[in-house]
């Protein structure tokens, strides 16, 4: 269980959240990658504005969760929500922000007609897998496959 619920505002992503996201990513990965996040934020803002969410505490972005609602891929004709990237400032972990952003995204996906939400996870990343399990993700009949080329 989270230690406490931060007084966070969960709201849809916009273009002025870029610095906050770049900063969180830098704290997590140690790399400053503004170009990468400019591309990604533009992609999600364009594709499905309102889907991706950020968590704000005292006017500062401390978490983000990016994704969109789409259909027609991998034989999935009904719309599905996809959670593709997320990050929480290490100083604000354990405060239930991930769950709150996830729930906001799910509300948006439901409003768009989705009945399921999907993501991919590295099985070796125990902390990420644990978080996804905690918010209700389970095994899917779809399996991610890959081969080297």
């Amino acid at each position, binding site marked *: 269980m989270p230690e406490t619920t931060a007084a966070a505002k969960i709201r849809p992503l*916009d273009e*002025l959240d*870029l*610095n906050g996201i770049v900063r969180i990513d830098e704290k997590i990965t140690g790399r400053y990658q503004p170009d990468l996040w*400019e591309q990604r*934020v533009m992609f999600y*803002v364009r594709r499905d*504005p*309102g889907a991706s969410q950020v968590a704000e505490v005292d006017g500062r972005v401390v978490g983000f969760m990016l994704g969109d609602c789409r259909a027609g891929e991998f034989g999935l004709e009904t719309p599905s929500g996809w959670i593709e990237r997320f990050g929480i400032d290490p100083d604000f972990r354990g405060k239930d922000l991930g769950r709150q952003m996830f729930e906001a995204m799910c509300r948006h996906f439901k409003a*768009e007609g989705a009945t399921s939400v999907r993501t991919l996870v590295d099985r070796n990343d125990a902390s990420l897998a644990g978080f996804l399990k905690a918010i209700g993700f389970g095994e899917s009949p779809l399996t991610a496959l890959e081969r080297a080329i």
Partner: protein
Amino acid sequence: MIKVENRDLPKRYHDAVEHWQRHNFKDYDLLLKYWDKYFPKDESFCLCAKMELGTTDVIQIGEFKGEKKREKPEEMTPEQAKHLLAIIKAQASTEFGSIQQHAGTVDRARDDEDKFWTMRVMAEELRHGYQMLHLLLSEDWSSVSGGVTGEQMVEEILSMTTGSHVLDAFNLDYDSYTDNVVFAACIDRVGKYQLTMQKVCAYKPMADSMPPMLREEAFHLAAGVIPMRRWAQKAAQGDVFVTMPMMQHALNKWVPRGLEMFGDERGGDTNVKFGFKDLKNEEASSLYHEEVKKMVHDINTRFLRARFPDMTPDRCEQVLGDLERSRGTYHGVRWDDLLRVPDKRFFRRKGVHAFQMVGIDGETFESADEYLRYLAKNLNEGYVASRDMRLYAEALEKVAAGELKVEDAVKAMPKLKRVGGTCPCSKGVRWVMEDCDGGETTVAVR
């Protein structure tokens, strides 16, 4: 569940919009041809009105709060309907107006991605204009339009060219592609505020028009802010063709016009009273001004991090704060090498601060000559040499000399008005100045 219904205008009006597009947005077909290349898997573009379904039926604000939303003009009081009609026409004018502005310089984009982003913005503005025409044509407004028919209103809107639009920001030509980008970042941001405020509109078809437009507006803002961020990076790295003063001059041109788009700071009560918007002018323009400050702060961060790659995020915040307080220098970067948001009173020609002589940083000027020299240094050359600036300067000099009252100076700023037919080929417009008694004087034919 979000459901949107797409609606077409009657064929002859749809054709009229497409005809307008052929004159004013010549690369439209190019955009559609390469849509999948630049916007893979995005929903394809639809020139149609989009109405959000399932929105509330209840008026949320104003003196009719709690009553059922109006669905026809005759369900409103004549005063209300007339007021709303003016809002719809102004909104339509801005949508078509921005396409005409973008079209002048879109080909000067530095790369194809920037150009296609701008063209998508133009296409979506076309759709937004179409949406407003749908509002004008789907009901009969003749009882409050002074007998002007829907057809005549459409003709009037499609006849407007840069100079004749309802709001001043849409009457300024772009001087370079910098204007395409900074306009999207600053003026489309005003659009976001207006659309957001109008989500509560007591006229349901107007309220239902807003959410789909707002979803598209999110891209427009990003199409302004992200190129500005990239330019700041290039400027910091020494690109001689992309500079911070270039962006600052564009901010100086557009932010004052953006503030004026909210209307006079003393007004807006009627919009709230009638339930058309949920914020008064001063409240909304102040929020806007703060948001532009946030945008500029982020762009300055991008600049400093590019100039000093080893700088940590916390150190960057500290340096930015120090530079702002001291107005000094940090390792060769001067405070005024960074972008600043012009003071709310800077270069205003409408509203409570009209014709005050206040600089970007709030400094005041005693003489019109001194102020005009200051403006000439802080706006780009192409704009300074324009008719718009000449007329502003003439009015300012008269105000400063006590020969013209501010309210008369506000009215004296010229507008282009249509005198010909619908087709822009006719060039049937002229520059007119409104006299103090409401009459008009032709000052030039375009």
